[in-house]
């Protein structure tokens, strides 16, 4: 999922054999990846075929019991569909909220661009946990939003904005926006004001010019941002746990519960592998889209 996929490099240069030096330079990151990613995943994979013995114990075995348990239980299947559905909705909302910001920054004069980018990315300096607590304060029954609306006389009963899906969606959208904005901007390379001007000179009204010219030219950024945010949304568990108030059940929160609370590690590992499979599917979809755009 590298950005390099978008480069207009002719196929010939892309297929050039990797130089020995370049291969040598890739070695450190390959080692780090092997230790930090491949080994743990392999471990998870192995564990998902182990047998849970209750009370946190597990026995080395090759059993499909965990997968069977997962597939047979409608609760788990619902977790999968809900996780995917909610993550898609969150991704879409994040896209809608971030697109104007990314476009604005892209069009800002050069001297403002870096400042605006820093401002957009600055929420990342505060941990997602802290920001989630912030949202709990803002969205709570006696929080900022309800307080303001009540004192303005708009509502008499507080709106239920936390401890439910609404809270999770609001929190995650905000938390994911910086990633989306950055991805969009990375993919805005081909966008140039003159394309819109050309469209308008040909009789396109601003909205039509946006739809027919701007959106297609920014699709690489949209695809990249959506992939990234979808993956992050599916795998996030702290924000759904806190803003969901234990009432929003998702794949990631369930993994946390199985691993930390119930101590059924093999089942947690099984669900982790399921999430990985979902990521794999997302990646395939992304690759398809990018190839289509090329």
């Amino acid at each position, binding site marked *: 999922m590298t950005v390099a996929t978008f480069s207009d490099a002719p196929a010939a240069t892309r297929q050039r054999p990797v130089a020995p030096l370049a291969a040598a330079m890739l070695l450190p990151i390959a080692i780090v990846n092997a230790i930090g990613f491949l080994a743990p995943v392999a471990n998870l994979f192995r564990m998902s075929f182990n047998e849970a013995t209750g009370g946190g114990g597990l026995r080395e075995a090759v059993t499909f019991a965990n997968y069977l348990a997962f597939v047979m239980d409608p609760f788990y299947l619902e977790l999968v569909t809900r996780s995917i559905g909610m993550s898609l909705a969150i991704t879409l909302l994040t896209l809608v909220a971030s697109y104007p910001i990314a476009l604005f920054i892209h069009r800002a004069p050069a001297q403002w661009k870096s400042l605006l980018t820093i401002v957009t990315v600055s929420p990342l300096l505060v941990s997602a946990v802290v920001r989630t607590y912030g949202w709990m304060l803002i969205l709570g029954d006696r929080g900022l939003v309800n307080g303001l609306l009540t004192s303005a006389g708009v509502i008499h009963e507080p709106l239920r904005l936390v401890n439910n899906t609404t809270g999770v969606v609001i929190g995650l959208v905000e938390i994911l926006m910086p990633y989306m904005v950055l991805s969009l901007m990375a993919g805005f390379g081909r966008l*140039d004001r*003159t394309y819109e*001007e*050309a469209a*308008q000179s*040909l*009789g*396109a009204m601003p909205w039509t010019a946006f739809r*027919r010219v701007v959106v297609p030219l920014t699709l690489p950024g949209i695809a990249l941002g959506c992939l990234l945010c979808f993956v992050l949304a599916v795998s996030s568990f702290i924000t759904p746990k806190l803003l969901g108030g234990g009432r929003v059940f998702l794949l990631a929160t369930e993994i946390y519960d199985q691993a930390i609370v119930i101590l059924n590690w093999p089942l947690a590992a099984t669900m982790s592998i399921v999430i990985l499979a979902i990521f794999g599917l997302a990646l395939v979809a992304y690759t398809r889209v990018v190839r289509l*755009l090329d």
Partner: protein
Amino acid sequence: MMTSLIDRDMPTIAPAHDPRPDHLVLEGLEKRYDKVVAVAALDLAVRQGEFIALLGPSGCGKTTTLRMTAGLVPASAGRIVIGGRDVTHLPPYRRDIGLVFQNYALFPHMTVAENVAFGLEMRKVPKADIGKRVAEALALVRLAQYGERRPRELSGGQQQRVALARALVIRPSILLLDEPLSNLDAKLREEMRTEIREIQRRLGITTLFVTHDQVEALSMCDRIAVMQAGELVQLGTPFEIYERPRRAFIADFVGRSNKLDGIVREAGVIEVGPLTLRATETPARGTEVRISVRPHRIHIHPHPGSARPHARTNLLVGRVVRTTYVGDVFQYDVDVGPGVMQVEKPTAAGPQPISRGDEVELEWSVVDTLVFEDRP
């Protein structure tokens, strides 16, 4: 040779009456950016079917004028009328213009045919007609076979022609071109000049053409509007602009010229240091003026004294300080005292009669002695 110089008349400027009505009118058009005045009170009337060049050095406001006409930047003051309709406050998509950008701005995500069809789709032209008109437009620019290609699979010149087809297919009321040839190599540029002019004539479309290339302006256009620092300083046919530039700036910018500074001593006589030169028209006595003479209008005599002085010619003795061979012409730099003048002679087979260090005599008609009060 002598007689031809003496007999040379003032170039007659035929004020050939053009019966065509004005089609594009810019009235007191102005654009200010904070303190910068990009375009100042510009008046210009382009006749129906006329091809006018906006010519001037970088930063003189050509693009700004064109973009105001297209509606891409709002005018600070003034009026824009296209075909009798005041469009000053209309957005670009309601102005009925065809626009060709310097970088072509072809939509990279569409094929050539889709690019050309875009404007027709915006105009809700029926599907069946779109195909036909796109094919016609592509044939017009000799790219009939290229409809399915992507813009990036075309050469610069081909992209240029697609941009032209895309702008013309909508049959706009006026065509606006911003330096459309500046990204092409010299040979292709020459071809495209003829081609654009040819297409423009055939369609009879009123055209405003921005360029900083004087050769382009002279060779392609009916009339040239010369701009300097946001102002329109002269509007005239290529002949008028070249032969009777109204300012030293124009003489300098359009074509090449030799410059000498002097003072008017009496009507028709100018003192340039120790030299005395004649001109047909001079401002009041005592005025400081700049004299300008085109290099190829000067005759060079290898032997001083061979030309006889005459009231209708200027005669100067000088020494050749440099000779340059440029293929079709020889350039001689001749030191005449108050300055060095460049003279151009077509090359001929055989040895060149003049070499560096030679003393020579320069002679040119008073008619070719341009006198200006501005000294840029």
